[in-house]
């Protein structure tokens, strides 16, 4: 039983959404997705999956506030406390196990409702061993990982700056990317250093938005369209929750990708994958993730980045949408924005930033302080 993407919808992405509450934001994305798929959610949908974490929303049980706006009232509806791509994996399993023919997956970010973002991330840290140490913003945790990564893989500042330059410039062609900018490597290198060796510009600022996918089995897909986009493979993996056993080298993405590639029957990703949308909520993470997805070899990624190999017109475009550096940190919707871009590209709906492609990969990480992540392979 193959799984297809029947429709996609999104709302945003903006730095702030003062006119819509979280329900209305989800609603806007959902209505567009149902229209795109050509279905009536009250009749056709078998299961609804939301990806949310309580403290990103400010509730104790966010699941309560989900069904109405997605058309899921009195239907099988649940929350997966993870990124959107974990939701895609859940839908994939529900369809494969015959529990549902059509599944809706939703994730959103209402980061503008959070007044103390740093405090919330800090609240994810182990309270006994880590949370109370020092007074700095928990971004330091990513900076430590960066410190280890750059020394281990001999990455220089210019190579990391190149990621920022590529993504922010790509974002200029994406009307739903609020952080697009015309910047150069010099601009980046001259910008303030806040978590040495990390610069402020290398950290993706937060933004609001919602993404909704309608997934279905191949029979439903065949009825709706002649050229569906398929979910070829999904993978998710966790290294550990303890900093002492973490690889700090994106092993989670490597293993998740391995699982997804296996399901998608991809044996040589660097050749078979046409483009990728990877998590770049910190600029160095993009390099790490490209390597983990086996799109380049270790020690090579930095120089390939400088050569324009991953540019929009390069051999293997990465983050054509602008990535998180251009679109913003969408919390649990991060993977949603990635998957959305992959599907839009595969359907030829990416407008000015359209590239030629048949197979695309979306990847997301669970953010500080975790070592978990997920990968999905889409193809036509």
């Amino acid at each position: 039983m193959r799984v297809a993407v029947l429709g996609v919808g999104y709302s945003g992405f903006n730095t702030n959404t003062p006119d819509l509450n979280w329900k209305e934001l989800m609603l806007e994305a959902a209505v567009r997705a149902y229209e795109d798929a050509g279905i009536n959610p009250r009749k056709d949908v078998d299961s609804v999956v939301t990806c949310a974490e309580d403290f990103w929303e400010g509730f104790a049980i966010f699941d309560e506030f989900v069904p109405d706006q997605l058309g899921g009232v009195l239907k099988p509806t649940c929350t997966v406390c993870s990124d959107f791509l974990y939701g895609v994996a859940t839908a994939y399993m529900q369809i494969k196990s015959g529990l549902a023919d059509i599944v809706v997956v939703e994730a959103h970010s209402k980061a503008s409702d959070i007044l103390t973002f740093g405090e919330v991330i800090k609240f994810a840290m182990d309270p006994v061993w880590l949370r109370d140490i020092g007074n700095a913003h928990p971004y330091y945790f990513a900076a430590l990982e960066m410190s280890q990564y750059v020394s281990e893989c001999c990455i220089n500042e210019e190579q990391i700056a190149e990621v920022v330059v590529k993504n922010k410039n790509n974002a200029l062609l994406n009307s739903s990317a609020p952080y697009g900018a015309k910047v150069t490597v010099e601009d980046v290198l001259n910008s303030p250093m806040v978590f040495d060796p990390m610069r402020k510009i290398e950290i993706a600022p937060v933004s609001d938005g919602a993404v909704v996918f309608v997934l279905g089995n191949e029979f439903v897909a065949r009825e709706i369209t002649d050229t569906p986009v398929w979910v070829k493979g999904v993978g998710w993996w966790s290294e550990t929750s303890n900093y002492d056993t973490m690889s700090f080298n994106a092993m989670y993405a490597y293993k998740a990708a391995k699982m997804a590639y296996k399901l998608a029957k991809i044996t040589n990703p660097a050749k078979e994958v046409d483009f990728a949308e990877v998590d770049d909520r910190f600029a160095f993470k993009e390099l790490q993730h490209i390597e983990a997805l086996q799109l380049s070899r270790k020690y090579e990624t930095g120089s390939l980045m400088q050569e324009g190999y991953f540019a929009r017109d390069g051999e293997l475009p990465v983050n054509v949408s602008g990535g998180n550096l251009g679109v913003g940190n969408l919390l649990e919707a991060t993977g949603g924005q990635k998957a959305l871009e992959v599907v839009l590209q595969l359907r030829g709906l990416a407008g000015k930033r359209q590239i030629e492609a048949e197979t695309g990969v979306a990847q997301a990480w669970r953010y500080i302080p975790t070592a978990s992540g997920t990968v999905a392979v889409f193809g036509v």
Partner: protein
Amino acid sequence: MVMEVERISGLKFHKKQDVAIVGAGMTTFKRRLNETGKELSYLAVKQALEEAEMELSDIEMVVMGSAPDAFDGLHMKGEYLLDGSGGSDRPYMRVFVGGGTGVFAPIAGYWHVASGLADVCLVVCEEKMSSSHPHPQSAFKYIWDPILDRPLNPNLIWIFALEMNRYMHVHNIKHEDIALVSVKNKANALDHPCAQLAEKITVEDVLNSEPMALPVRRLDVSPPSDGAAALIMVAPHIARQITDNPVWVTGVGWALDTTMWTNRDLYFPRYVAEAAKMAYKMAHITDPRKEIDVAEPYDPFDYKELHHMEGLGLAKKGEAPILTREGVTARDGDLPCSPSGGLLGVGNPIAATMGVKACELYWQLAYRAGKRQVAKEVTTGVCQAWGDLMQVGTVVVMSNKR
């Protein structure tokens, strides 16, 4: 215009493989435990692995069920609990439907195996409510709508009291009849080694206990606890290697009702009815009252067991108190309900109540419940949980015949 898809009928429930349960374990439920959430999870998993005679390396994927982050006091608590739940270096996912998580996590485990993505899936549920202060109940302040409800300073118990009162009013049920559930479950729990509040009490004790939010009194309520539970779900070819008598998951169902709980009549849990409909259809059960031998309905409050029995179709609307009074739901009755002692007797560490719902049902059907084993012969059973703002019903049907 929205085009309507013509549905292909008969496709539903065509799974890749069947799903069996081969091991379960749980920790003691206590008001406050010293172990961290990770350590509690580890203790429960260790028991389950021991029962199934498996090693951690045999586990392919892990599902975690845990309720609000506000209890343990950790944002992204699933990620924190990961290593103690055996999630290190494997696919691990946390699912969440509020209080219904205890039975929802096995449903998620079911689709991990039934889809063929995993042959061995470990399901772990954990809750450490004692971390939350000033009181574990304080965390429930944040389940309410921040703008429409929270300014009224609500307590969680309110919503139950409102539902209980409506239920009593519509069916003209006396508190005495409801209190019988508390008496039964707390007595059943005397045989449970993990129980926090097992005791012999009388209906008068319940009716004279301290008022919390009338009609709810102290002894109508299950206590907040710390604890964890684990369950191992496997594909048929694995089950065969481990045991001659696995317990099969034959039906799963879940449903989430509207957020606007004040917009519907609370006397009947239609969310449970919908979930049960799905699970029974899958398990080919047409007359639940006759075909179900043992039930573990969710009982955080005594009236809830009755309410849920009606939602599960084990009793007609308004009939559950009569069955209870007649002893039908006793451990030696015709339809034993909560033979474990339930949440009222064993304790209520929200998601970890999987230990007295899904795990207990497995033990009953595998004839491993020891002193708690029901008197009658059992083939098929149902367990259920409820959650969110009177919204979620989660139902699992198990059978010891495939």
